[in-house]
């Protein structure tokens, strides 16, 4: 009797977890609808005119800001985390590798505000005083590059963790086969392990990308928040999440403002969701096949 009730309660909780995602989309979409009635989606996404007082809500500058920052983060994070993951999974001694994995986990646990503080204290001055002058550019330091670098450090642990798991799923027989033919360790990694692990590694990097795409506080603190299309990595950017975070409180007085911001949130959710769905799906398949 109790067992039956418990089963039904637990089942409904499990189902509601799955439905939660749909509920989020539905609520955001419902609240974003008013603005879609007065302007078309493509106008909103591809216009850079953001003048809330005049009722113009072009999100392009923010979308571009997000893309720039995410792009820099991915370009920096992917090679570093891939090399580290190969090292930890293939080369390093087990004990060493477990110590490093612990440290990587700690890095992953550091709150984004702290990353932001660190970015302001270290990365921003570094760009302002060293890196930008090196390229002969004037920069306040609060820039796409600063946001990208801080994000890169934030997503690296995630990519490393997932990639190491993926490499561990590659059967040892393949490594043995390649080594026994006289391949060097690196050749084995490059031609066999990486090739076998490719779908999983791509998925790991997509997860990192999705994380970077939606990260708010750290980027908000170092990217400069100027709503203009960035022209180089040294120009400031105003990513979507920062837009929401900075303006959500005061939006009530201006008509359509909240609707526009919730549309931004919806876009964010949609993109991140698609990326994580695809990569999780790939990873699931990959791990099942490896078992």
């Amino acid at each position, binding site marked *: 009797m109790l067992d039956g009730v418990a089963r039904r309660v637990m089942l409904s*909780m499990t189902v509601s977890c799955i439905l939660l995602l749909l509920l989020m989309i539905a609520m955001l979409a419902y609240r974003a609808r008013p603005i879609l009635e007065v302007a078309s989606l493509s106008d909103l996404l591809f216009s850079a005119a953001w003048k809330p007082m005049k009722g113009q809500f072009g999100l392009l500058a923010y979308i571009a800001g997000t893309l720039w920052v995410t792009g820099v983060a991915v370009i920096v994070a992917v090679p570093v985390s891939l090399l580290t993951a190969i090292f930890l999974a293939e080369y390093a001694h087990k004990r060493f590798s477990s110590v490093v994995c612990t440290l990587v986990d700690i890095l992953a646990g550091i709150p*984004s*505000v702290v990353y932001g503080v660190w970015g302001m204290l270290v990365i921003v001055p570094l760009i302002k005083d060293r890196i930008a002058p090196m390229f002969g550019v004037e920069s306040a330091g609060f820039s796409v590059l600063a946001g990208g670098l801080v994000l890169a450090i934030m997503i690296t642990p995630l990519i490393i963790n997932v990639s190491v798991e993926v490499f561990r799923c590659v059967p040892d027989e393949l490594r043995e086969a390649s080594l026994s033919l006289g391949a060097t360790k690196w050749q084995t990694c490059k031609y066999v392990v990486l090739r076998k692990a490719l779908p999983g590694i791509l998925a790991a990097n997509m997860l990192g990308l999705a994380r970077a795409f939606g990260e708010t506080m750290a980027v908000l603190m170092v990217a400069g928040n100027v709503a203009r299309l960035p022209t180089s990595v040294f120009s400031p950017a105003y990513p979507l999440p920062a837009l929401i975070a900075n303006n959500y409180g005061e939006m009530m007085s201006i008509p359509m403002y909240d609707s526009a911001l919730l549309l931004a949130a919806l876009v964010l959710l949609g993109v991140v969701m698609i990326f994580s769905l695809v990569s999780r799906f790939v990873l699931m398949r990959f791990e099942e096949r490896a078992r």
Partner: protein
Amino acid sequence: MNARRIEETVARILMYAATFSVLCCLVLIVGTVLVRGLPALTLDMITHTPEGGYYIGRGGGVLNAILGSLFLTAGATVIAIVISLPVALYINVYARRGSRLASLARLALDVLWGVPSIVYGAFGFLLMMAFGMRASMLGGMITVAVLVFPVMARGMDEVIRMVPHELMEASYALGATRFETAFKVVVRQALPGILSAVLIAFGRGIGDAASVLFTAGFTDSLPFSLLEPAATLPLAIFFQLGSPLPEVQARAYASALILTGLILVISLAVRFLTRRYSRQTIS
């Protein structure tokens, strides 16, 4: 032949460099926060609330934010446990092996885990508006609970999955119902792992700023009511950092140090638990 050896060496050097730089980042971050935060970390910081003129450099501390964060996250964690544990148990004990629902639930949790916290913040705010609530500790708790429960549920799922099937069968053989098996045998067996999942979720919750930004609000007084706004550490850091006064900024660093310290303690506790846990399962 020699080219192969050179390539191997170059690859190794690059790998060392990459691993080293990742570790350097950790040291650098913790080091920076320590160096800049320690000088401003006074006893007042952790025992006082902001006094009048705190934000222009007068006396006080961030006790409001420390307690606010601890209370809020503790509440959120409790709510998240109530959601996560049944879900994790359901997909492992009740659902059949290889069940569609179980893999769908795992996928959904993984995707929810990746949803940006700012979206949770916006969602939580919409929920609160729908119920006519204003920014309050309770609102923050609920939002943070929704934010952390996927992490927690997946963490629990991973350890409960490891519980040997024979153990469950032995329990059924003794005439126990699935409910009894789930809560008495499985939970007990996986307890250290479950606790570490709870701690990981707590760590994620206490560090998150974007989700509490509109839902919990901010206040200078101590958080004693669920329906009043509550201060949180991440937001305290954020707001103090926004000040142009170096004294106030220094307090932001000190607050960041407090938060980092809390997180590190949690990480170490998780390590301790998982290590003990894996030792138990091997023997």
